[in-house]
């Protein structure tokens, strides 16, 4: 970490990003380079990896060792799970979800991607756009990561050739167009030598774009959450029932999107009852207005029957209330989807029994072709129709991630077996 005025840090933004790439694309080296060049590596970490590098009979410092967490990984020289890293510059704080590139761990990529503002897709300059790069990009687009960076790495191994870089960009852009992805930044780099990561280096004079760090520090992210539609899923009802707070009834939760002011007309869903916001209560005192993603306690003017799982919305911005919907499902469990079984769906603060009534298709993530299938196995992604026992209050995922996403839980094992994203109604 560089020397920072402590006061300057108090109100900076937090950017979450993931790195995705195939095995040996240099993900770990890139993260190591970002941490090293932004001076976020600690001396004891550096001395530990220097020691390990020499123990393995190699020279210098292997920056990729920085992100190796578990014993099993060090033995096999691979990454087996999402690891989170933290660093800061005077402009922003960063959380990196380091996601593995192995085929069998697609679920970890989806996990890491679900909270990310930005994804860095790493491509080996010698190999170009591979099947895995397409898969990672498809997953990033499916999960709706707002910003994509294509980092063409290992430019040192192709003599820093502008032609190679442009060819890879053209290949990638053709694929991205199929996915309707247009907001992509392309950059050449050598994570190993540090070119275009934090420093520009001297090897890529023909490239006039910004460095990766420059982009990470400056890309606007304040529009990444939906600021238009007020959504407030109730987590808890607070009734202290003490003498001075005898009649207090507060609805505790987090504003998932949009904003709210005292006096605003709200509708409680799924019941449809209406009232007005009386107070916005916080530990630090009452507020006049609050915005996503603040956690607050709301009180309303009327006595209504409201409990966990209900959602408060602004009366003029209503979501869908439905017991049947279509969704893209990413199957995460080794146990395949069994359409005969009932599962649990957790959506916002509501848990309901659910049945997959139809598997519409599976997406071949390499070709993007749709295939008819009877079941989903681990890492399968496709569109299904779900029926739920009680109505869900939801939006389309592409409009609102918080109210358009859900997880599927197997009631027998209690495992999280799938991640779902609600689709707009067909038509």
């Amino acid at each position: 970490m560089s020397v920072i005025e402590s006061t300057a840090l108090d109100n900076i933004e937090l950017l979450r990003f993931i790195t995705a790439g195939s095995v040996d694309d240099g993900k770990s080296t890139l993260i190591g380079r970002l941490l090293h060049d932004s001076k976020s590596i600690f001396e004891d970490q550096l001395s530990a990896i220097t020691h390990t590098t020499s123990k393995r009979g190699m020279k210098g410092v292997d920056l990729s060792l920085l992100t190796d967490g578990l014993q099993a990984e060090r033995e096999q020289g691979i990454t087996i799970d999402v690891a989170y890293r933290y660093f800061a510059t005077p402009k922003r704080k960063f959380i990196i979800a380091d996601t593995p590139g192995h085929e069998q761990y697609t679920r970890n990529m989806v996990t890491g991607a679900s909270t990310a503002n930005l994804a860095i897709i790493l491509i080996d300059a010698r190999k170009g756009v591979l099947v895995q790069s397409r898969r990672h990009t498809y997953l990033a687009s499916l999960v709706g990561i707002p910003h994509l960076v294509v980092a063409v790495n290992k430019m040192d191994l192709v003599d820093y050739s502008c032609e190679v870089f442009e060819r890879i960009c053209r290949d990638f852009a053709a694929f991205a167009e199929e996915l309707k992805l247009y907001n992509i930044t392309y950059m050449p780099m050598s994570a190993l030598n540090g070119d275009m990561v934090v420093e520009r280096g001297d090897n890529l004079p023909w490239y006039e774009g910004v460095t990766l760090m420059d982009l990470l520090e400056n890309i606007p992210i304040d529009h990444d959450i939906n600021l238009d539609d007020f959504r407030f899923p109730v987590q808890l009802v607070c009734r202290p029932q003490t003498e001075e707070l005898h009649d207090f009834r507060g609805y505790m939760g987090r504003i998932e999107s949009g904003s709210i002011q005292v006096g605003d007309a709200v509708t409680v869903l799924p019941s449809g009852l209406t009232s007005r916001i009386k107070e916005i209560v916080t530990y630090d005192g009452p507020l006049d207005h609050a915005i996503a993603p603040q956690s607050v306690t709301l009180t309303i003017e009327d006595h209504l029957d409201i409990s966990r799982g209900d959602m408060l919305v602004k009366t003029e911005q209503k979501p869908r209330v439905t017991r049947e919907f279509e969704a893209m499902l990413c199957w995460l469990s080794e146990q395949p989807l069994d359409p005969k079984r009932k599962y649990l769906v957790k959506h916002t603060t509501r848990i309901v029994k659910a049945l997959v009534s139809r598997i519409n298709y599976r997406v071949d993530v390499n070709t993007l072709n749709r295939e008819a299938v009877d079941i989903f196995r681990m890492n399968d992604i496709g569109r299904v129709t779900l029926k739920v026992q009680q109505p869900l209050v939801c939006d389309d995922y592409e409009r609102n991630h918080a109210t358009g996403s859900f997880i599927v839980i197997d009631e027998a094992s209690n495992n999280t077996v799938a991640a779902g994203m609600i689709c707009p109604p067909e038509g």
Partner: protein
Amino acid sequence: MDIILSDMQEFITPVPNFVMKSEPIVIKRRTARQLGHLDALESESIHILREVAAECANPALLFSGGKDSIVLLRLAEKAFRPGRFPFPLLHIDTGHNFPEVIEFRDRRAQQLGERLIVRSMEDSIRQGRVVLRSENQSRNAFQSVTLLDAIAEFRFDACIGGARRDEEKARAKERIFSFRDEFGQWDPKNQRPELWDIYNTRVHAGENIRVFPISNWTELDVWEYIAREQLEVPHIYFAHTREVIRRGNGLLPVSHLVQPKDGEQPENIMVRFRTVGDMSCTCPVESTATSVDEIIAETAITRITERGATRMDDQTSDASMELRKKEGYF
């Protein structure tokens, strides 16, 4: 917080073509200011605490008197006031804690008016559940036994802890809701996927969830929050003169548990603790920081990780924490 709605601002997006900076695309968009990072982290933690309270039948919050759990308590106040905490506080006392931390622990619990349960390793030792090689041996690793016994005694289905992912590399792979089997074991290869902010809190009887609401906070975030919230912390976090000996790469405080060996020369120097754990293996660092602001300034430029500097037990092997966690350590 300022909200700027309906204010059209111009942003220059990243260059769309591959190599050359041609005409930058200027897009107009409506902006509202994001929450600052401490506000965002705080809100995330409150959301997590409320999910535990809503979905777990019988949770407990692990409170040691250390800075991370002090932050947890403030977050719990923010999450649940004007109501009471929907869980008791639980401390696993190794018997090797710093006396001033124990005094602080009791005082803080009393100020909050919340229930504090203490289970001590001394009892586990007396019952023969923990067998130590020597009286002065570090007790950190054995906390797991007492913790698992307490979980069984009170039938806790969730334990909220102050661990952070930036502390240690095995922690970096931990979920926020971390599932433990009936032996309290963590299986890193078989963790539940954790997507968006939708947490799966479900366990069968006898199983347990460990919940880490400040997973995404760094050491610096914790100190900045302590400063912002004006939280009291035990005074051994501040620089003071202490008798220490140099052993290995660290300093060890001289106490009834740690006595100089042959050739070791005790010194009196200005030190502070970055973590407060077992007295026999928690090392202070040399420091002149006597206020929270000075600690923040030191933390912002520090060159050694928190655990690297302060925990002898994490230096035993590259995988010390991973092994302890697999055995049920929180």
